[in-house]
Every structure is written in C-alpha cells, then in structure tokens.
C-alpha cells in the first residue's frame, strides 16, 4: 500500500513537473509563429516604386446600396443600378467600380476564407481557357481582412495567388461589401455596361457552374 502511495506521489509529481516544464519552456522561448502572421508587405506601385502596402483603404460609395443577398434565384437587387464605389488599390492607386460601357464581374474575397482560396484558381483557369467573355471586366475587392487570420496580409496573398486583375482594398467596416449587399465570401456580382445588376451569387463554384451562370445573365 505504501509502495502504491509512493507511486501515486511519483505520478502526481511527474505530471506537475511536466506541466511546469512546458510552461517554463514556452515562456522562455516565446511562441514563435504559427500558420498566421502579422507581417506587412511591400508591393510595387504603378510607377515602379516599392511602397508599403495598406491592407485597408478609404472607400466611398455613391448611389443606392444594394440589399443584402439572400436568395440568388430571387434577387431583389437584380436590375437595379449598383452604387459607384471609389477606393484604392493596396498601393494607394485610385480605383473605381463604376459603369464602363461593358459588363463587369466584381469579386469580393477574404484572404482567410478557404472557399475564396479555392475559387481564385478557378477564375484564373476560366480566364486562361479563353472561355471567359472577352469584354468582361473583372475587379477584385479584398474585404473582411484580419491581421490575426491566415494569409495575412491580403496584398501579399493576391500576389501569391497570382490574381491577374485589379484589386480594391475595402476598409475595416467593409463598406464596399456592404454597398453591394455581399452576404458571404466569395461574393460575385455581375454588372452590365450601364452598371445594372445582372446577377449576384455567394460561395465557390466550379468552372462549368461559373460559365453557365455568366452565360445565363450576360447579353449575347
């Protein structure tokens, strides 16, 4: 019985010592870094100079905000004029989402969202395959950014993902996403040349689904 009691004391002491050792080692060596990081990135501006990227930029929306997307098949915003959104790229270059006389696809992306990460290569493949309508303009909007979430900073994330189109950096209040009534990421909004909403959708989709979606709503 005494031997068992000693064994119990030994176990209790061992567990306490192991926990103390873990705590001590972690406190001494620090946490290191996990899969997420809080680094900032440097990007090249249009003038060719290296500038510190700003992950959030001021955004101003003009016109009537679109209602939040609930049912893509019965979208109340379809046919309405989308707001004009004035903002900036990560490098501070002005960028405007406004009617340009040709259809436009606005893609709202969050760097930490696994569905956005899955969707980007499909959009790029759609473009590279030549199946994307030639006159369709595409613009990305980095929204919902968080410095404690994976793939931060988004300015580097879009580079790593080889995003080939312009990107607007939404502000911390996600004003651009709110203006377009985005209800989830990735959020896709298809506009005609006059800035009217042709269709909106949320969530990742395969290339065939994207093609069918665009063909259904884009004027031939």
């Amino acid at each position, binding site marked *: *019985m005494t031997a*068992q*009691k000693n*064994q*119990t004391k*030994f*176990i*209790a002491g061992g*567990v306490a010592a*192991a*926990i103390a050792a*873990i*705590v001590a080692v*972690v*406190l001494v060596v*620090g*946490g*290191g*870094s*996990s*899969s*997420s990081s809080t680094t900032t990135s440097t990007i090249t501006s249009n003038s060719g100079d290296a500038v510190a990227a700003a992950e959030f930029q001021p955004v101003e929306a003009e016109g009537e905000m679109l209602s939040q997307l609930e049912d893509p098949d019965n979208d109340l915003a379809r046919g309405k004029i989308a707001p004009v959104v004035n903002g900036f790229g990560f490098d501070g270059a002005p960028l405007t989402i406004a009617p340009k006389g040709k259809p436009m696809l606005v893609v709202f992306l*969050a760097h*930490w*969202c*696994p*569905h*956005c990460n*899955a969707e980007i290569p499909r959009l790029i493949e759609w473009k590279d395959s030549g199946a994307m309508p030639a006159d369709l303009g595409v613009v990305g909007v980095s929204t*919902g950014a968080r410095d*404690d*979430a*994976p793939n931060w900073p988004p300015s580097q994330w879009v580079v790593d993902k080889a995003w080939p189109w312009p990107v607007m950096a939404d502000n911390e209040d*996600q004003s651009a*996403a709110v203006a377009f009534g*985005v*209800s*989830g*990421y*990735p959020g896709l909004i298809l506009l005609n040349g006059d800035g009217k909403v042709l269709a909106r959708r*949320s*969530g*990742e*989709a395969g290339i065939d689904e994207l093609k069918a979606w665009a063909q259904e709503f884009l004027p031939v």
Partner: protein
Amino acid sequence: MDSDTMQLLSALLALFAVGGSLVLLVARLTARRFSAAGNFVEAFRPVALPLAFLVPACAMFGSLWFSEVANYNPCKLCWYQRACMYPLAVILLVALVRKNKVAARQEVTVYALPLAVLGSVISLYHYLLEWNPTWETNVCAIDVPCTTIWFRRFGFVSLPFMALCGFVSVAILLCATYTKNREVSDTAEQLEKV
C-alpha cells in the same frame, strides 16, 4: 502573454494531456496481462479526478482567453463545444471538493462522460470541417464561419483539435480509472487504511 505564446502553450498542454491519457488507456487495457500496468492504473486512480478537473478548467480558461483577449470570435461549433466543456469543469470541481471522494468519483463519471463524448464528436467534426471546408457549405459567412482556422500549431493543432484532446483526456481519465461498486468499497477501505 501574446497570442503566439498562448497558442504554443495551449497546444503543448493539449498534446501532453491526450498523450498521458493514452498511456493510461493502454495501461488499463493491458492491466490483466502485465502487473506493472495494473499497478500503474491503481497508482494513477487517486490523481485521475484532479487531473480530469484540471483539463476542462485549463480548456475553459484557454477558450475564454482566446475569445476575450485575442479576439478570436467563437463560431457556432465553438459554442457547442463550450456548452460541453464548461459544465465539465464545474461538475468535476464539485466532485473534487466532495467529502466522499469515492462515491463522488463514481457518480461524476456518469454525468461527465456523456458531455465528454458529445464534445468529442462535435470537436472531431469541427476539426475535420477545417480540413474539408466544403462539407458544410461553399460560402464563408461574413461574421465567423466554422471553417475559419485561427491557427495551426505544428501544422495540425488547431482550436477544435485542442478541444478534442481535452474531451478525450477527460473521458479516458474517468473511464480508465472507473471502479465498480465492489471495487469502490475495496478501494475505500484501502484508502481509509492509508
């Protein structure tokens, strides 16, 4: 303490808890074949309840730290896991402070085990969902989707994984050292003699 340090500390403690529990489980399963394993289980029995309390208590503290200090907003599945983990800490504490340790030890297993098992199932699903985000939906919610991975230590230890470690540890600690009525009275007598 910064978030990185807390992530590493909680990940190591979770791995230690589940690793130690698995050693206990193996000892319990081989107790009849190896007397040393049986002796280990017997010697472990008095510390099982304090450790079973310590695990959810640390998990509760950790989850509150991550949500309130590090601002990792809990998702729907995180809340379900909290609903299992927090009561575990409370009922195991009550069992720990009761005078009749043996009876409390036996009774609390009946109450704690369903919570630990249910929590394990939810944690496992949440962990697998992190690796397979298309299982539940194809869209990230604007607020806090359950597919958000706040961190992955060592490439695999995330928040639901740590919760899973906690639930499994509690279940093993309670089950592997559980004694039936006759054994309880024997153990009680032995403890009184000690």
